[in-house]
């Protein structure tokens, strides 16, 4: 089968984003609304009866939606939000498991010009509060199972006017500011006036973690569709007959850019599995739905490797034709393993919340070098710059900072309420994602690591600062330092070094208590998987904790310069 991109080298030569604009039928200055493009437009193209979404829950229950169904459902949600008084640019948070209302709610919010703020449903109340406070969110759409977390922080959130519960049990009372919305019984709205959004109209606010400070709200715009549509088509190679499965949760950017916007704007059928991980269940899902294109993450791939080759043989996975991966570097062993068991390699794709779309990647048909990130997407100018001079290296093979020329359609527009930090992401005319890499003599990028202390665990960024702050709120903790430690499945996991207050003694019980404390406050991702109780932490003479030393110890690296280390 011919890939959508055809020849990478030919595409690079004469690339213009106009290719995407023309396919979308959109010119500069025209209205562009992602919600409309993902539903109404596909229906207008004659695919109203085509399956858009096949959803399966953890008990095997299934729901199917055609493009006309999702057009009407997103209209109904948009209409309901409008009836509450939600208007353009209001922030509406989606705080749900991977249920259909999450996918449909996202597009419904965009249709009325409001800003969708998806948050990972495993977030604890503190993580939720920080992000809702920053965005001054007006409404949150959630499930009854997550309502207790919202109630816990409600008093601190006078700006939050509506808690919309999509599966409310009528036998139970609704509390303050809570309203019930049932998509199945809600009036079906056939015609909704789409809010006239343009390329620079805000669309999505995704939160991401940095080394210091609070999480940052990455603001995207409706014009991002131009990048998301074409990268989906050329990198994920989605074609009309494909059955696509993106395993990412829309609480994170992959789950929206390539779990909602990309596949729906391309008019393909996608499947969603709302269940925890199990190798058997995943393979069964692929077999049952005859998945052809599968976009997943290195953590999941390594979990599948860990489950062994025998389980793969129990299922017919011959429908798979194209595999891709995102979230953290894909190690060469995983690429080679996938080739062995699935008969095709997972192709690594590199991007981040701020880039909104895939920027450096391996393409269908291109020579794959296992372990490499691949080459820049046509239209993306990427290089590696010297950390000191901020000039691109003239020689190949040198390690520096990845740098991208700003200006592609899905580039973030700012950090919400934090223009200052946004500006710091640009140096010498380049956007700096914060990752280190080298480029080989054939133009392939090779990932080296983060340029900061942010922990990438299972493809999700965790701020050591946030975890340290949460630890300090525990009654027994005097000081804390958080670093990553190596992990086969998740690449890195969170490790905490902790000193205790007088009167507290290190014990297995205290260890577990602190782990659970952080898990509930922040999220399971942020929970230290190991806590080491120590008498003191390494500090500079000015009293700053030197995470670098602890990190080096965990990774078996050279400690480096310790001249500023405080004397014992």
């Amino acid at each position, binding site marked *: 089968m011919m890939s959508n991109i055809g020849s990478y080298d030919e595409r690079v030569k004469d690339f213009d984003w106009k290719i995407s604009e023309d396919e979308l039928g959109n010119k500069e200055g025209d209205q562009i609304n992602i919600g409309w493009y993902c539903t109404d437009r596909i229906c207008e193209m004659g695919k109203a009866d085509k399956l858009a979404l096949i959803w399966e829950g953890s008990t095997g229950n299934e729901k199917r939606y055609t493009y006309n169904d999702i057009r009407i459902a997103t209209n109904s949600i948009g209409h309901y939000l409008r009836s509450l008084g939600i208007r353009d640019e209001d922030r509406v948070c989606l705080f749900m498991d991977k249920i259909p209302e999450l996918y449909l709610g996202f597009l419904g919010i965009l249709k009325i010009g409001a800003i969708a703020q998806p948050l990972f449903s495993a977030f604890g109340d503190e993580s939720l509060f920080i992000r809702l406070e920053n965005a001054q969110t007006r409404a949150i759409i959630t499930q009854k199972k997550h*309502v207790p977390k919202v109630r816990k922080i409600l008093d601190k959130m006078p700006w939050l006017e509506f808690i919309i519960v999509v599966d409310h049990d009528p036998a139970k009372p609704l509390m303050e500011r809570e309203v019930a919305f049932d998509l199945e019984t809600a009036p079906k709205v056939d015609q909704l006036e789409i809010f006239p959004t343009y390329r620079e109209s805000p669309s999505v606010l995704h939160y991401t973690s940095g080394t210091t400070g609070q999480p940052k709200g990455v603001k995207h715009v409706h014009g991002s569709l131009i990048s998301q549509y074409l990268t989906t088509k050329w990198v994920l190679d989605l074609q009309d007959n494909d059955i696509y499965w993106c395993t990412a949760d829309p609480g994170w950017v992959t789950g929206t850019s390539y779990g909602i916007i990309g596949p729906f704007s391309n008019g393909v059928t996608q499947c969603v599995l709302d269940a*925890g991980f199990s190798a058997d269940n995943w393979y069964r899902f692929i077999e049952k739905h005859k998945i052809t294109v599968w976009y997943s993450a290195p953590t999941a791939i390594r*979990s599948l490797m860990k489950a062994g080759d025998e389980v793969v043989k129990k299922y017919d996975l011959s429908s798979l034709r194209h595999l891709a991966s995102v979230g953290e570097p894909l190690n060469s062993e995983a690429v080679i393993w996938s080739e062995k068991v699935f008969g095709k390699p997972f192709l690594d794709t590199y991007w981040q919340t701020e880039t909104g779309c895939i920027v450096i990647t391996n393409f269908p048909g291109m020579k794959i070098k296992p372990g490499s990130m691949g080459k820049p997407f046509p239209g993306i100018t990427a290089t590696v710059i010297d950390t000191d001079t901020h000039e691109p290296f003239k020689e190949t093979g040198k390690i520096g900072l990845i740098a991208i020329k700003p200006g592609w359609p899905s580039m973030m527009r700012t950090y919400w309420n934090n223009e200052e930090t946004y500006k710091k992401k640009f140096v010498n005319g380049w956007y700096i994602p914060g990752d280190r890499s080298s480029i080989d003599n054939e133009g392939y990028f090779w990932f080296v690591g983060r340029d900061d202390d942010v922990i990438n665990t299972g493809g999700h960024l965790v701020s050591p600062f946030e975890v340290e702050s949460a630890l300090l709120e525990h009654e027994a903790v005097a000081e804390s330092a958080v670093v990553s430690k190596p992990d086969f499945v998740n690449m890195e996991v969170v490790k905490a070094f902790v000193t205790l207050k007088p009167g507290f003694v290190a014990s*297995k019980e205290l260890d577990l208590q602190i782990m659970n404390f952080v*898990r509930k406050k922040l999220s399971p991702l942020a929970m230290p998987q190991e806590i080491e109780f120590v008498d003191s932490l390494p500090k500079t003479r000015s009293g700053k904790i030197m995470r670098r030393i602890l990190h080096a110890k965990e990774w078996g690296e050279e400690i480096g310069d310790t001249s500023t280390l405080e004397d014992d």
Partner: protein
Amino acid sequence: MEDMHEIVKAYVIDEYVEDDTEITYDTPLISGGIVDSFSMVSLKRFLENKYNISIPDDKATPEAFDSVNKICLLVKEYIA
């Protein structure tokens, strides 16, 4: 010894269930999305502390932790 099934079930409800979802000994915990793979580490730590055992990482699989019944079977293997 107090019934292990009840102890494990009570711990799961206390720690991982936010609302009034009913948990039985057979409720799928991992595949059912009640306990995610990261939280499994704290559940494993609880079992190790409570029963003074050490469960090897390669035995602590999502499948082995998928219900109270399965967890109890696993724990019993390591209790001397």
